[in-house]
């Protein structure tokens, strides 16, 4: 079991390694940014983005995502470090010469121009003749499935249609790199999901590199080749979506991607060539997989996904088995969500597939819960 897991995460790492052989399309090298001369909103930012890749910058509001995008687009200058586009530094290249398509959060469509004129604009300023312009505009509209709306003004379109126009406009001059800053933030949920697939379809059908910004982890998971999780202007972890979920390297990422129970305690012992730690969480001893260097006595945070917690397992089946009390049961359609009191707290979550009659559980039940070593990761201690 343990070996199997190890194997999965190493293939992921190997895949990422393969990508490294392709020349990077975009490179951030030690980029920092401060607006006020004191607080760095982006700190020593390093990132390689490969040609044709869909990379998402994921992080809470204020984590510096927009700032990074603005520096790449050329609307903000890095305070230090450099950005390379296809190997060439671009710090003295103005935005208009970078040839990067950009989709803004509020679309930034020009309201006084028709859809056709909006799309035609980047071609006109490039001095393209009107015949070719017309053809390209038609092609772009077709790509986003808006054929026939060329003569409308943006104000006459629905939010989703405006979004498509914005994407078409960012693509119509055939840039090899397209940036999108929370492009779906203004749409309602079902439209957002539709557009997620639409953008993915477009990404696959064209050979463009996309740098996508969102604070919605689900959106990031659906769309991205790789996700860079940002916190306070730094990359906390960059991984393929599965890797991020299965192998978070920090308590922050574990919390931010999906759900996770986090317990705090001290390392009391180490096993298996120091790959497994035993952690004292205030009475209960829990064995967990070591992720980053730690020693006996260190304060650490443990992370366990709710769906990996088993209810009332056969005794001896799981390395970690502790007792708990059922505090609350929530029926979520396909699954049952159980809030438990254990290890001195009452917000420990477990989810089990939906079973008739709540699997015989009722509030106040005393239960045993268990999980394997590999499903529980020892992470650097973080203030909850």
């Amino acid at each position: 079991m343990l070996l199997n897991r190890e194997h999965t995460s190493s293939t992921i790492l190997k895949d990422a390694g393969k990508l490294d052989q392709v020349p990077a399309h975009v490179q951030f090298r030690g980029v920092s940014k401060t607006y006020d001369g004191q607080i760095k909103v982006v700190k020593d930012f390093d990132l390689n983005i490969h040609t044709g890749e869909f990379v998402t910058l994921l992080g809470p509001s204020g984590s510096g995502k927009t700032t990074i995008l603005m520096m790449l687009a050329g609307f903000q200058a890095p305070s230090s470090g450099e950005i390379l586009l296809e190997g060439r530094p671009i710090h003295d290249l103005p935005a208009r010469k970078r040839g990067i398509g950009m989709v803004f959060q509020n679309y930034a469509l020009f309201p006084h121009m028709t859809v056709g004129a909006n799309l035609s604009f980047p071609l006109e300023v490039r001095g393209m003749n009107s015949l070719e312009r017309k053809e390209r505009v038609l092609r772009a509209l077709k790509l986003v499935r808006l054929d026939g709306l060329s003569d409308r003004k943006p104000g006459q379109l629905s939010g989703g249609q405006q979004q498509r126009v914005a994407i078409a406009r960012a693509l119509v001059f055939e840039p090899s790199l397209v940036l999108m800053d929370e492009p779906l933030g203004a749409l309602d949920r079902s439209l957002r999901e539709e557009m997620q697939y639409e953008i993915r379809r477009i990404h696959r059908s064209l050979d463009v590199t996309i740098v996508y910004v969102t604070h919605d982890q689900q959106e990031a998971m659906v769309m991205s080749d790789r996700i860079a999780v940002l916190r306070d202007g730094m990359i906390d972890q960059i991984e393929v979506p599965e890797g991020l979920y299965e192998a978070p390297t920090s308590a922050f990422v574990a919390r931010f991607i999906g759900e996770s129970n986090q317990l705090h305690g001290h390392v009391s012992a180490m096993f298996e060539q120091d790959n497994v730690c035993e952690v004292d969480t205030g009475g209960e001893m829990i064995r967990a997989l070591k992720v980053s260097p730690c020693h006996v006595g260190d304060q650490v945070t443990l992370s366990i996904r709710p769906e990996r917690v088993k209810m009332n397992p056969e005794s001896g089946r799981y390395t970690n088995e502790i007792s708990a009390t059922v505090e609350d049961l929530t029926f979520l359609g396909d699954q049952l969500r159980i809030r438990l009191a254990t290890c001195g707290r009452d917000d420990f979550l477990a989810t089990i597939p939906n079973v008739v009659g709540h699997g015989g559980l009722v509030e106040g039940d005393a239960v045993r819960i268990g999980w394997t070593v590999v499903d529980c990761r020892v992470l650097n201690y973080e203030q909850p």
Partner: protein
Amino acid sequence: MAGPLRLPGNPDVRVRLRALSLVAPLVIFVGVTFVAPLGTMLMRSVYDPVVADALPKTLALLSDWDANELPSEAIFATLAEEIKHASSERTIGRVAGRINRVQGGFRGLVTRTERELRTTGQGTWREIMISVDSLWADAATWHAIKVTGERYTARHYWNALDMQILSDGSIARQPEERRIYLRLFLRTLMVSGLITLLCLLLGYPVAHFIADSPPRQGNLLLILVLIPFWTSLLVRTTSWIVLLQNQGVLNDLFVALGLIGEDGRLSMIYNMTGTIIAMTHVLLPFMVLPLYSVMRGIPATHMNAAASLGATPLQAFLRVYWPQSLPGVGAGALLVFILAIGYYITPALVGGSDGQLISNMIAYHMQTSLNWGLAAALGGVLLVGVLILYMVYERLIGIDRIGLR
């Protein structure tokens, strides 16, 4: 069966009636303070009963008069009678004054004739009056009486347009030396246009800067723009005198810097330059405010978007920013232009003799020459001009696009 008086049952109508009743006070206020005086003033430009009331019988006889001959004895006699009557009523001065505007020298003529009529002389009225002054033998004199005797008349308007009604009833341009109003209208239009342009050139960057600043700084800057509103117009205008006059701050500065010699001091005030400088300053806020309110509605990301699409800053401005700011440009320009056309106090104070505009002429006719009919007609022409402009604007940009969001 008659029920109690009720408002119409339709709730829509009732709501609308209630809304109307709330608007009523303002409607009445505007009616009393604005529409009524404007109406009477415009009425004055076409209605003038003074001569018609004083000389009714003469005018009745003159209506059949063949302008090529001397009027008959009967007409002379009737006029003499009515002059005496008006003299005893003490209205003769006003009557003579009215006619005098059409026929110079008439006032003196009446005074002399009136004096003579008191001592009854020998012969027919015709002989007596012609012996007082041969002007009575001039058909133009009688024509003047006839023309001013019309109760409803367009002559003030013809006058305002530098035209006159000849004795045969045809319309002709005034003689060269009497053509003043058209030139003044033209000058007013051109100066107002220039001031509007200057306000736009100066105000556009300011408004853009304010709209682009963070809200706090923006508000502060906006207050700076508005401060002039808090000081009296008179103070502002006179402070320009301090700055611009021959021995004023600017001239002193230029001399001190050696830009001009002591004897080469620029005359920047009491002429058109002064009028233009001071009025541009006074009217600038009326340009900045509508511009600002429109520009604030233009998202800042639009310029970034244009740049990301490959546009140079100039292309981005011309194709993206400027078209979106047009409603503000239109509103500001219309406001400034209309205000400038009717501006009075600033040109009066700093305009000297060649910096006067049409409104100063209107004021002159209101206060000095007391030719209210002409003043009203000049005002009427101005009003028509403004309405035409408004319609042109409506056609080109659409008045509903004046965005004061």
